[in-house]
């Protein structure tokens, strides 16, 4: 038998196991999921249509409901398979940078629209606000929804049907005024959200996963963050869809081990896996109540 001298240094130690295969790209995973589905009974396949179209409902939160939460709102609501999404700010007022650091532009939540702000800043100093990106941002925002909303003023469960008729992006599916997942963009906001949910007294008795994805408040980071949040949303939604499939009685026998564990149970693992891919966006999570 041939002896490989290169192994000598390894002594009797067992050689390293081969590296695990790289995770298949998402499209491949979806394809394999579909292949799995094809095996199912016709009865189950009637569910499939329903389950596949199932979407978790999201809520994105930052300080002013302008930059980070709106970038994420855009990403989630305009994804190839769009998610229902609503967004909020946790600050007391909407603050936008002004001509100097101590002259911010301040607006009220809930009563000022993005369009109003856009017009106002355009009139004030178009060059400045064009250059610092504010006008672009407001332009984006006013195409998404009417105006910034304050998280603390949100009454969970209050129907938001009018947002559909207003054409807010992400309003479809979030008419009920409830969400399954809240994603904040800063630890301060996460603290504020968890605290506010406790204060609201969880009237709906409905669990909600509250994540934080720490994103620096600038346009570039917001872009990266938005992408990362969409990634997280896709991962979570996939698990939720799997749960709806695995737990119907017809599919019960088919699901094994991992597939059977519920969406809720998988959340820490999903977040941990996500975090490895996005190590620069420190994440945090809890399960709270709406």
């Amino acid at each position: 038998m041939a002896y490989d001298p290169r192994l000598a240094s390894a002594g009797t130690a067992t050689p390293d196991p081969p590296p695990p295969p790289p995770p298949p790209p998402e499209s491949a995973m979806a394809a394999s999921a579909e292949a799995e589905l094809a095996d199912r009974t016709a009865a189950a396949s009637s569910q499939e249509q329903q389950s596949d179209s199932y979407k978790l409902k999201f809520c994105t939160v930052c300080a002013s409901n302008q930059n980070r939460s709106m970038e994420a709102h855009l990403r989630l609501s305009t994804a190839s398979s769009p998610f229902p999404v609503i967004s909020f700010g946790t600050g007391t007022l909407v603050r936008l940078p002004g001509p100097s650091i101590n002259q911010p532009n301040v607006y009220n939540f809930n009563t000022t629209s993005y369009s109003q702000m856009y017009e106002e800043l355009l009139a004030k100093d178009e060059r400045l606000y064009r250059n610092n990106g504010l006008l672009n941002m407001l332009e984006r925002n006013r195409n998404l929804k009417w105006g910034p909303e304050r998280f603390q003023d949100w009454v969970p469960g209050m129907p938001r049907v009018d947002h559909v008729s207003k054409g807010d992006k992400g309003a479809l599916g979030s008419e009920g005024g409830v969400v399954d997942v809240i994603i904040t963009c800063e630890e301060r906001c996460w603290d504020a959200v968890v605290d506010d949910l406790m204060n609201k007294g969880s009237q709906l008795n409905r669990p909600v996963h509250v994540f934080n994805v720490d994103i620096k408040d600038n346009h570039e980071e917001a872009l990266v963050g938005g992408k990362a949040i969409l990634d997280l949303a896709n991962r979570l939604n996939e698990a939720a869809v799997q749960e709806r499939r695995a737990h119907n009685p017809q599919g019960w026998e088919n699901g094994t081990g991992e597939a059977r564990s519920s969406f809720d149970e998988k959340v820490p693992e999903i977040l941990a896996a996500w975090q490895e891919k996005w190590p620069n966006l420190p994440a945090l999570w809890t399960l709270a109540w709406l």
Partner: protein
Amino acid sequence: MAQSTGNLGDQVAQLNAARTLVLGDAAFYPQIVNGVLPIVGARAHLELRRWGAEFLAETFSSPALALVQKEQLSAVALQMLRDTLELPEKDTLVLKHIVEAAASLYPLVFRHIINHPEDTAAWENMTAIKDEILRRWDSFPFPVKVCCIKFVQRVVQVQTHGVTDPRVRSRKDPQATQPVDVDVDHFQRPEQNETSLAIVPRNHPLLSLPNLEAEASGLLDRLLSALQEDESDPLLVNATLNSLSVLVRTRQSIGNKIINAVLSFVPAKQARTPITPAVRVGVKSMERTARALMVNIMRRNNNHPLASKMQQHIDRLMQSRQEAVDDSSKKRGLPTEPTDGLDNAKRARLEAESPPLLKVPPLPSGPISYAQLFTLTEDAGLSSFDVKQLPVDLLVKIVVPLLARVEPSTMYQAVDAIRSRYQTVQKQQAAQPPPAEEEDDDDYEPEYQPMDVAAPETEQPAQSTEPADLQPDLVSLGPFVLPQPPPLSETEAADIGRGAVGRVFDMLATSTTAPAAKGKGQQNLGFSRLAGSTFDRDAWVTLLTRLATRAPAGLEGKPDTGKPTISDSIRETLYRYILEDFRGRVNVGIMWLNEEWYNDRIQMKFAASQRTEDDEEPSVNIHYDKWSLRLLDGFLPYLDSRDTKIFIRFLSEIPEVTIPVTQRIASLAKDPERVNLCVQSLMYLIMFRPPAREMCLNAVEDVYQTYEESRPAASKVLSRWRPHSTVLEQTLVTRTENQP
């Protein structure tokens, strides 16, 4: 098949349209709910059941629907939910929504039943749902378990006493769209009182207050058990923690219990190996959620009695997480560094930061010189180079830039090396007494190289400018004498004394009683044993009693100075300590009074011996009488007719029974319940304490005369021990007189 699928799809579409309708206008709810229920009932298709359960959960939690309407709809919904649940339902999502709906319905139905006790069907359905949920709680799939936590929290909230606002007289028409359980403090004047046990009438035919309260207490324990288990799932822990805030806020009676449970919860303990990234996410989330809860509680109530404890716990949580999880994450961080060559810059930098290890040659054995101590180079030429040959200004020119450029880590390493050398030498010298001077010189002279220092040691040049004298004794310092502390003022001394006493009392609380085996051994020693020779509680008690009685005896001036003395404060503390639990601490009392009595005797003897002819009566502070009566007065009011044994033991073991003591005992007879206690204790003293017999008999006579109830018992004692008592005869006479 296609037919049924198509039908199903149509049905779901229709249902969704109906939902959109009610979301648009809540007024349609009654109509829609009643119309939808038959379609989505217990035996409907899974997809329809899921839709139905979710819809009901949404309906009964909706802030848009008025309470009165929810209450009206609850009857039909309860029936449908119960049927579905008991079928039994197996689908996780349906179950999840059923439990959510039940959590919303529970306060609603509870309030309904308070006002309509005749609606037994609704209550029966609600109870059946509750029981079923509680029964299956542990076996439910995970997402349902999570919802059970919320359901149980609602039940606990409803079934404990809340705050009622007296301004709200009775149930007004609850047209308010706000749910009932919104925090009372959000409103100046609530429309109606929050649903809680506090608004249940005592004589309610269906709701029995004690049962409901007991159930709630049991459920709370079960709820909090998620925080007490060794291995809890972060999901359940977070769900629990996030549901507790409202209970702490609105239910004072259980607030502290909850906070204490949270305080004793340490998420880092849950960090089992292997610490996977998911475990880290879980631990961090539990820690942050616990923190959020405590911050929430503290913000609501700034001067919460447990606020400082919570703050401490928050700090500790942060720390423990860093140790348990983040530490390992740092260790794990390195291998994840890209190693594909793209990142060479980073890696090079990392390497540059770890300094070359300085080689520290061992010191030669035997006595060494300063020069040797500071020499780190092994280069013979370098170490024999005499720096003194260089002019000072040149030296300065060399040394200053050298100092500026030296690598800090190398510098630290060198300093550390020298320090450890120095310490070893110090130890060696401390171990062996320094040899005589002449010998030293002999040993050192030949080896002594005055200027053998030129290693890249930065402090060496400075060192070398000093006269490199031979100093064999590096550490021989004269004996160090602490300066006398400034004298204490009298109050300071008293304060410090009290502090010391306080600490000894703390020892009482913490130290345990001696182990049984040891105790036995001690008893066998009999009279030859020494009090206070072990460090158990008895020893501390002995110490305290003697501290109070003997230590300051004769030092405290005249009895009439009226100043509080340290011994009196110890006595006071002892007195309170005993009264806190006189049944358990009666032996402490006995021990103490014995010491007092003994000390009084010794003092009197001493005073008598000091007495000279022309002296007046010696005055001695007598403590025994005062404190025995005070102690007796302290616990007599709490004495119970069942405490006979303890009381008799006390009376029999105190060193002296005085007339005031017998009077105190006699006063017990005022209370008809304690007459027997009184007579029995007196009888005991009569029988077994001859010196006190006469005064006790007098006391019995007194009791006999004064209190009718005592006569049967007291007459027996008297006829046995004082058969010719005048009292007995008198009563006999009066009795015979009264009988015609």
